């Protein structure tokens, strides 16, 4: 008991100090608390009165968990929810430390725990979720965890024999099989045919081979990447029938779609976000939330930093986008095709641990799509500015239109100066916040300058 209180107290103190210093307090408080009381997460997670929901997968877990949290908050529930990026055990512990009282007894209704794929087995040792939602399994962070097969197997083993519900993407052959041989209850979400499907996938795909028999998987249609209507010609493995079906999808100026009897509109963009919405809605329905509450919450929800946030600098819009793997980059380039304006594309490529040390993933993406997006200049920045510049050149961008500015600020200024009607600021994770700060600052000083010149002309 005492141990628990000391752990919470110290965790909170560390959190408070980091906040005063203006640092990110997402990991260290939890780490300190766990050093003092190894079972602190186990203990605090018992204060959840309703349910614990774990959200994992390669792409979309942050957006999906934010949306689900938004829906539950709309309903008036108190929730514990870890911060994006802090999705290892220490980050999750921090979320609980921050929300609890000093005795560690404060109750919350729900916990929404976003976690990395490889972290799921560890997390299940400490908390007892009712539900695990899996978005998709794409090639990502391979350098940290070895190959995808291995990760999927680990998750499957950790689920075995536990009584929980799985909320699974029916359109991903790497995910849809996960309930088999585990005894878990499975709920599926997926899309029926959409106007955006293709019969051929241009993108590099995971899971082309059947998880059960090893034969190559066939597709009737692709929604994007490996997500689609699939079947194995040899053993018959195919999409399970979804309990939550997305249809009437439109991606013009945002997203609108029907999910069973719900009508959803959102200011998010891109097919991948339609999947995130579908996943969040499926989970919310399973938790018994009413349609109106869900529809309202998603409508109100605006994209946070790095997910298509727009700045206006001297009249030129600059859209900030986080890209971190081939699928995400493909999706971004797809989305850019919908925007017909001429554009300057800035790309900051870093290779810090949180970005993935290996930058070769840019060659697994179909950067060749850049030829269809009406670009003026491509500005290459970040620690690996050279790598992205080479990729752009070999994707077909003329050398004359490639500018290398390794320093972020110089690169962003270059993109704003160039003649495109709009600028897209693409960035990997560790450059994202610096890019955002630069854009924020430029936006503020530009609008101040504008006001200044106006008042001057009035004089």
């Amino acid at each position: 008991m005492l141990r628990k209180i000391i752990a919470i107290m110290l965790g909170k103190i560390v959190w408070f100090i980091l906040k005063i210093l203006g640092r990110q307090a997402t990991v260290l408080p939890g780490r300190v608390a766990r050093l003092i009381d190894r079972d602190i997460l186990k203990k605090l997670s018992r204060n959840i009165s309703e349910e614990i929901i774990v959200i994992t997968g390669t792409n979309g877990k942050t957006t999906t968990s934010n949306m689900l949290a938004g829906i539950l908050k709309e309903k008036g529930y108190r929730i514990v929810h870890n911060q994006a990026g802090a999705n290892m055990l220490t980050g999750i512990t921090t979320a609980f430390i921050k929300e609890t009282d000093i005795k560690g007894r404060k109750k919350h209704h729900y916990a929404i725990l976003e976690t990395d794929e490889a972290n799921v087995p560890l997390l299940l040792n400490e908390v007892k979720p009712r539900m695990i939602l899996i978005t998709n399994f794409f090639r990502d962070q391979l350098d940290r965890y070895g190959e995808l097969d291995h990760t999927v197997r680990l998750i499957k083993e950790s689920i075995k024999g536990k009584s929980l519900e799985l909320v699974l993407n029916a359109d991903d052959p790497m995910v849809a099989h996960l309930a088999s041989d585990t005894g878990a209850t499975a709920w599926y979400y997926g899309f029926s045919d959409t106007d955006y499907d293709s019969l051929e996938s241009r993108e590099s795909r995971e899971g082309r081979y059947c998880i059960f028999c090893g034969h190559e998987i066939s597709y009737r249609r692709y929604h994007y990447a490996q997500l689609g209507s699939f079947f194995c010609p040899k053993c018959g493995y195919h999409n399970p029938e979804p309990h939550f079906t997305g249809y009437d999808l439109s991606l013009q100026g945002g997203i609108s779609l029907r999910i069973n009897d719900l009508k959803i509109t959102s200011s998010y963009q891109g097919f991948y976000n339609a999947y995130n919405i579908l996943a969040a809605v499926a989970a919310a329905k399973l938790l018994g939330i009413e349609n109106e509450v869900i529809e309202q919450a998603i409508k109100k929800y605006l994209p946070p930093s790095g997910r298509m946030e727009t700045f206006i600098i001297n009249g030129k819009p600059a859209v900030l986008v986080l890209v971190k793997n081939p699928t995400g980059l493909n999706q971004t380039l797809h989305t850019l095709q919908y925007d017909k304006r001429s554009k300057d594309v800035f790309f900051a490529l870093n290779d810090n641990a949180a970005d993935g040390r290996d930058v070769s993933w840019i060659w697994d993406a179909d950067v060749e799509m850049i030829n269809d997006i009406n670009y003026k200049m491509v500005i290459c920045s970040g620690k690996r500015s050279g790598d992205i510049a080479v990729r752009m050149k070999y994707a077909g961008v003329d050398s004359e239109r490639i500018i290398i500015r390794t320093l972020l600020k110089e690169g962003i200024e270059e993109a704003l100066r160039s003649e495109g009607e709009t600028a897209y600021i693409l960035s990997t994770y560790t450059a994202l916040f610096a890019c955002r700060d630069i854009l924020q600052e430029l936006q503020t000083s530009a609008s101040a300058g504008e006001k200044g010149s106006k008042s001057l002309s009035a004089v």
Partner: protein
Amino acid sequence: METIKIAHLYPDLLNLYGDRGNLICLQKRLNWYGFACHIIPVELGEDIDFSTLDMVFMGGGSDREQNLVYRDLFRQADALWVEIEEGMPLLAICGSYQLLGRYYESIDGKMMYGLSFFDFYTEGEEKRLIGNIILETEVTGEKKTVVGFENHGGRTYFNDDTLKPFGKVLRGYGNNGQDKTEGISYKNLIGTYLHGPLLPKNPAIADFFIQAILKRKGLELKGELDDRIENFAHEQVKRMLLGT
């Protein structure tokens, strides 16, 4: 226009960490030099007529995939070896490189046989060797640095000490993390652990293959490409690793 034919062996099975970038690079450079380039994907079960090809490329793959490939390629290995002996360029990355040796014994004791073109073997270990790597190679006839990214659990050892490594490791692990060797080079064949992908940031190596292809066809390489962007990227990694 002369058309160069490059076979991409098992693209669905062997393509890790952007290895297909090597083919994008060769194709573009050949185009810029004034040649057409046709990439021929070869799937499992297909028969290959190696004598009609100008080059063969094989990327990296996971253990399961290596085994499938071995079984399929084994039946055509003799024909492939004839061409290699006659100077056909071949680039094999990571798992495919391991396949050129005798065997790969995985960490859990599973044996995967190789084509035994060369007398070397590979043993899996728990700790993967991961990170940026820089080598010095002389395959082009002069000393050149080569940069890339390695990510392998296997350690490769030469039994035959007349075998020539692709390069000497300046920073990184290479074949086994011990003897400073990396990869293998034999005539116009290179086997290596380097992803990155290898060729785009090392235009000298890309042109080594292109030279070899053209020479074999009795063609000449004319003109020079503007490699400022490629060299910038090369130097950026080199600076990061060597601090010069």
